[in-house]
């Protein structure tokens, strides 16, 4: 145990927990591709772990993430994805996946399987499990009313834990003072 030097000695003071209003982050998920499902899940989970309140609003294609018929089938397409290179498959350099190959049947499934495999090796949970972790950790999930009406969905189409279908105005009310991240 070190006792010399100019270090500071502090006493234990009770934290001012009750007086502080907790930080609140709200995510708007507007995309339904596999790669765009993860940012809110990863950041939301990190926020919960740090004691930050989390609200996630799913709109347009983002509804696929909480749609129980779609959540296990989110995909990533190689077409028009300039960041997806052959290097993901071990080919050195910046060689892209030729767009004409990308449109072939099975290429989207191939790219999706590749990404899921990489995620699994990093022990990143699948989207459905991640959502459940967030719900269990206290995140509040909502579906956008206009998108739900447009796509002919109901609460029965959503995974467990989605709290309700709300309007844009409701979202504004429930995220007053929150930091908002649009994805």
């Amino acid at each position: 145990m070190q006792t010399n030097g100019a270090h500071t000695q502090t006493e234990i003071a009770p934290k001012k927990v009750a007086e502080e209003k907790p930080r609140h982050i709200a995510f708007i998920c507007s995309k339904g591709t596999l790669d765009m499902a993860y940012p809110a899940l990863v950041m939301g989970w990190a926020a919960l772990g740090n004691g930050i309140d989390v609200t996630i609003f799913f709109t347009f294609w983002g509804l696929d993430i909480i749609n129980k018929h779609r959540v296990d089938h989110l995909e990533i397409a190689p077409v028009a994805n300039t960041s997806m290179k052959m290097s993901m498959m071990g080919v050195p350099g910046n060689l892209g996946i030729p767009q004409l190959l990308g449109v072939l049947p099975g290429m989207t499934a191939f790219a999706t399987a590749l990404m899921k495999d990489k995620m699994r090796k990093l022990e990143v949970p699948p989207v459905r499990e991640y959502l459940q972790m967030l719900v269990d950790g206290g995140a509040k999930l909502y579906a956008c009313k206009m998108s739900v009406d447009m796509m002919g969905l109901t609460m029965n189409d959503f995974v467990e834990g989605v709290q309700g279908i709300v309007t844009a105005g409701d979202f504004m009310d429930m995220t007053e003072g929150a930091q908002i991240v649009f994805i």
Partner: protein
Amino acid sequence: MPTKTIAGTTVHVNDEGFLTDPNEWNRDIAAAIALEEGIAELTPAHWKIIDFCRQSATSTGKAPTLRAITNGTGLSTKELFALFPKGPAKKVARIAGLGKPEGCV
């Protein structure tokens, strides 16, 4: 490096109050930090998590992530958040005398 006296022991801490040397930790320190974090009493369930984190850190050299904790202890996410409410990632690591968990899940 600042020091802090916790439960009668002087330990080295960083700016956020995490112990910088896990070997300076003991169970009384854990109880005192828990009290600071608003946890009045460490129950056997709390200790199960703390002990797992200590063991995990001994073998890997870093504090486990929340998912590693639930997988490793068999406790559910809900139970983990109930035992260490409002930010279990930091709270567990701090009480266990470890650094912040490394890893995003």
